[in-house]
């Protein structure tokens, strides 16, 4: 019981995209967090971090969602999200959104201190040295912009990919260039978004990977959707799936090959 009680209590911020589109990423995150010695909880009152409202200029709705999310995650040692952009929203933008209200501001700051993006949490906080997954083949990694620039996540996913037995990391050109997803940008400006993702998939193709990984499901939907349209053989997965060895589900945009 003593050792059990020393395990940190980690609340998973599922993210709306993982919840709706790719639950296997959530289960992979749970498995990795458990492998890193954490007890995992999934607060039921969570919905979305509020980025669609925040980045559309609806500050009031974003603020309401910030307060709701902060309340839903009271009482845990850590809050971990399998997405750099959602984690940045929780960690960086929530305190700014509620600034002006002293009480909410204090809560937001204490909340923000506990928030981490999944992969950087595993590496930097939990010092995870081995991973359950394996992958035989060439892997390339796409840096999501928010994770990269707002949270400084670059080294951590590559470090864990280095622990994947059989995997060889091949970097593509322009890894730090946006893929053109940008939340609602991709549907507001489809032509420009297409130009950007086409450049991205050309860089992917040139690196000749078997598998493209990222910590950002939004980018993955965009890149995998484009690769599928182009008839590419490159598979796309969230990095957590491969690290956790949760590979039973077909890759993103890949048909069900199990039947």
């Amino acid at each position, binding site marked *: 019981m003593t050792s059990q009680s020393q395990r940190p209590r980690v609340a998973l911020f*599922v993210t*709306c995209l993982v*919840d*709706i*589109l790719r*639950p296997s990423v*959530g*289960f992979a995150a749970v498995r990795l967090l458990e492998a890193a010695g954490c007890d995992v909880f*999934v607060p*039921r*009152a*969570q*919905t*979305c971090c*509020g980025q669609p409202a925040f*980045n*559309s*200029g*609806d500050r009031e*709705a974003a603020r*309401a*969602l910030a307060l*709701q999310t902060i309340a839903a995650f009271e009482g845990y040692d850590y809050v971990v999200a399998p997405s750099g952009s959602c984690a940045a929203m929780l960690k960086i933008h929530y305190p700014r959104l509620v600034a002006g209200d002293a009480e909410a501001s204090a809560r937001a700051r204490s909340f923000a201190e506990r928030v981490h993006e999944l992969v950087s949490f595993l590496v930097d906080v939990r010092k995870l040295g081995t991973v359950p997954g394996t992958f035989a083949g060439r892997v390339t990694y796409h840096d999501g*912009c*928010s994770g990269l*620039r707002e949270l400084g996540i670059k080294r951590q996913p590559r470090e864990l990919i280095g622990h994947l037995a059989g995997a060889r990391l091949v970097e593509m050109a*322009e890894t730090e*260039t*946006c893929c*053109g*997803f*940008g*939340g*609602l*940008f991709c*549907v*507001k*400006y*489809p*032509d*420009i*978004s*297409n*130009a*950007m*993702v086409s450049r991205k998939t050309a860089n992917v193709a040139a690196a000749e990977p078997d598998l493209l990984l990222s910590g950002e499901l939004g980018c*993955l*939907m*965009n890149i*995998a*959707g*484009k690769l*599928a*349209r182009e008839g590419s053989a490159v598979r796309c997965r969230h990095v957590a799936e491969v690290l956790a060895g949760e590979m039973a589900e*077909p890759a*993103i*945009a*890949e*048909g*069900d090959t199990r039947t």
Partner: protein
Amino acid sequence: MKPAASAFTTRSAAALADERLQRALADVPGGFVAGRARAKAALPEFEALRRTGRDIKDHALAHLDLYLEEFERNAAAAGSRVHWAATADDACNIVLDICRAAGARLVTKSKSMVFEEIGLNARLQAAALEVVETDLGEYVIQIRGETPSHLIAPAIHLGPDDIAEDFRRRHSHLAPDRDMSSPAALVAEARAILRPKFLGADVGITGANLLVAKAGSAIVVTNEGNADLTMTLPRVHIVLTSIEKVVPTLDDAWVLLRLLARSATGQEFTAYTTLVTGPRRTGDIDGPEECHVVLVDNGRSELLGSRMREVLRCIRCGACMNHCPVYCSVGGHAYGSIYAGPIGAVLSPALVGPHAAGELAQASTFCGRCEQVCPVEIPLVTLMRQWREVSFGDARPGRSKTLLRVWAFLAQRSRLYHAATRAGAALLHALARGRGAISRLPFADAWTRYRDLPAPQGQTFQAQWARRQRRQAP
């Protein structure tokens, strides 16, 4: 019903289909972006210098009135006449009056964005003055009747072939079969055309990259030396610039100039850096008889007191454009505004109003690369988001606003939200019929026109997790 395509959308679609433009834009990463990266790598204190630059600008802006008055005193003491222009129209009138008083017929200009902002060329030409741009890129776009598409490289949207065509058309007095196959030949031709203009001009107008309060000096940088010929040869020199360019001392100016050259082109210092402190003094062998400084406000005082204040730190290096994936996809003209790219998306709505230019702040993925390279750390994403807040408040209820409202309503009611997402995931999964992706979905045409829509796995994580918890419960 489909909403009418915005002007930005129409222009950007044309830009994406323009093969010549796309070829010209393809050179940006290898040129400016690689140049900046090399300059940054060669200067270990570059990041610290950015913070110093930011602090210098913030300090100057916080005491703008004091430094502008100090500049005026010291510039006047050096013999310059300082004029204050509250609006673009005032600025044009001041310049016209100076030209008339000088009996001017030919005016040479050295590239400045403020001229474009206030529409100076049109006003001078309407007054029957011959106006000649002397920066090579600016000269090219002047003869094409275009506006600059970049802060420091106004003709970046053109290739050498385009320029050769324009020169053949415009310089029709030259031999039609002359060799124009090399950039050097184009430069030589422009030089030969411009030289008599430099010598014959009555008034020369330059901008200023910085104003130094303590010295009463304007600093002008170029790589072509054209500003020096513009300001030294005519009888009258006019410096026309905007009020936020002032910094307290020369030491402050050096910091910003080191940042400017590295951020703009990757140079350690611009080829020509000239300090202008009044007209020709007794004993000087050259220089103008009169020196005027026109300080343009044109909305900046209002910006200074607003949430957008940080945009006034900008030193016009263009790094945010060079590193912007949207700018590099569509070029500067698609923005339909004098200032393009991330800085344009923030500055233009302030100058011409959010109704005219508010959409520019929408056309960003918020990837944040602009902020990362800005030499004075302007929080460009935050400022674009603030413009989106202004637009959201002003917008009539349309389809996207209604959808956003419905989504926000659900997201604030977790039970209802989870029920809705369960239904949505199941529906989309069913539509995919066992395939991993949906290739055409009428209400998601903006997505499926160009890419497949990866299908959801079918059940939500929350639903599966709840089942798993029930199974595990004692």
